[in-house]
C-alpha cells in the first residue's frame, strides 16, 4: 500500500521502548519516595534525546496525565494540565539537546545535562506553582501576588527537586542514554538471522 508522504515510518522497537519507559515512569511516580525526588524527568529527557522531540513530549504528558489520576496524593485537578505541559517541555528539551549534540556525548555532556536538568526542573516547578496559584486567582487574589506567594512558599521543595535532578541528570544521563542507544542499536540485535550455516 502506498502511504502518503506525511505519514512517518514508526519503528516497532521505538514504540516498544516508549511503552516500557512509560510503564517505568508510572511505576516510579506511584512508588512511595521522598517528596520531589523523582527520576521521571530524567527518563522523559533521555527519551526525547534518543527517540526525538515527539516521543519525549508524548511520554512526559502521558505519564503526568495518568499520574494525575492515580497519584497517592490524590487527583491533581487544576494542576494536571500544568504538570503535563511541564513534563512535555522536559521531553522537548531532551529532544532538542539530542538533536544539537548529534547523538554523541562526552564528559562535558554530563555537565550540560546537569545544567539542563536543573533548568527544565525549575521550568516544571514554576509551571506547577502557577497551577497551584490558579485557585487563589479564581478566589480573587491578584495574579502576581498569588503566583509569587506560591513560588516563595514552595521554594524549599523546589530546591530539593532541582538539586536532586541536577545530580540525577549529571550522573545518569550519559551512561543510560548510551545503554539505551546500544539496545536500540543495529538491526543485528533485533532481526533473526535466517542465513544457512
Amino acid at each position: 500500500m502506498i502511504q502518503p508522504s506525511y505519514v512517518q515510518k514508526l519503528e516497532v522497537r521505538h514504540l516498544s521502548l516508549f511503552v516500557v519507559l512509560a510503564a517505568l515512569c508510572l511505576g516510579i511516580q506511584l512508588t512511595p519516595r521522598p517528596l520531589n525526588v523523582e527520576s521521571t524527568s530524567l527518563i522523559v529527557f533521555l527519551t526525547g534525546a534518543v527517540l526525538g522531540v515527539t516521543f519525549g513530549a508524548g511520554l512526559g504528558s502521558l505519564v503526568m496525565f495518568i499520574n494525575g489520576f492515580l497519584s497517592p496524593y490524590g487527583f491533581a485537578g487544576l494542576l494536571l494540565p500544568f504538570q503535563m505541559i511541564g513534563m512535555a517541555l522536559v521531553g522537548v528539551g531532551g529532544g532538542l539537546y539530542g538533536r544539537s549534540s548529534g547523538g554523541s556525548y562526552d564528559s562535558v555532556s554530563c555537565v550540560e545535562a546537569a545544567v539542563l536538568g536543573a533548568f527544565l526542573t525549575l521550568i516544571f516547578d514554576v509551571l506547577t506553582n502557577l497551577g497551584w496559584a490558579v485557585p487563589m486567582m479564581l478566589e480573587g487574589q491578584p495574579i502576581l501576588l498569588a503566583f509569587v506567594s506560591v513560588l516563595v512558599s514552595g521554594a524549599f521543595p523546589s530546591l530539593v527537586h532541582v538539586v536532586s535532578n541536577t545530580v540525577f541528570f549529571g550522573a545518569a544521563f550519559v551512561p543510560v542514554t548510551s545503554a539505551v542507544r546500544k539496545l536500540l542499536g543495529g538491526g543485528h540485535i533485533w532481526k533473526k538471522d535466517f542465513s544457512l550455516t
Partner: protein
Amino acid sequence: MEKRLFTYVTLALLVWGILGTATAGYYLTQYTTYQNEYKNLLGDLNVLVSAVGNFSDVMNTLSLRVNILVSCGNGTRVWFNNTALPIGSTAFTAILAVSDVRYNDYGGTMGILVTSINGVPRTGDSTHGWFYWYEETENSTWVPPNYSCDKYILHRGDTIAFSYESYNPWPTSPS
C-alpha cells in the same frame, strides 16, 4: 564552543538566581512571621506584667516549683529542691530536667517507662527497675501511682521520688 559554554553558564546562573530569590523570599516570610509572633508575645507579656505587678510574679504564675529525689538504690540519694518547671509539667519532664534519662515510650495509655537514670543500670537488669512516687503532704507518706510517670501532672510544691528498686519484694517507698 564558546557560545555553547555561554549558554550553559547563563542557564545555570538563571536557575541559581530564581531558586536563590525564591529561597530568600521564603526565609524573609518566615522571619517576618516569627518577628510578628515575637512582638505579639512580648505585648501579651507586658500586659500580664502590668496586670500582675512585676516580672518575677509573672514567672511564678507561669511556673511551679517541686522537689525531686533521685535514689540510685546503692545509698546514693540526690535531692533537687525548688526545681522550677513550666506549668503542666509531669513527673517525667521533671526527671528529664534534672537527670540524664533513658526511656521506652509505649504510647497511648501505657505511656513512658524510665529504664535508666544517670547511667543506672549500666547493663540490662531483670530484677530491678526505676519506680516513682509522690509524697502525700497531709501525712508525709509516699504514694506509688499506678500509671506512667508522663501521666502524673505536677502541682505546686509537690515532692516526687525516682528510685531504683528490686521487684522482689515490691517496694513501698524509695530507699
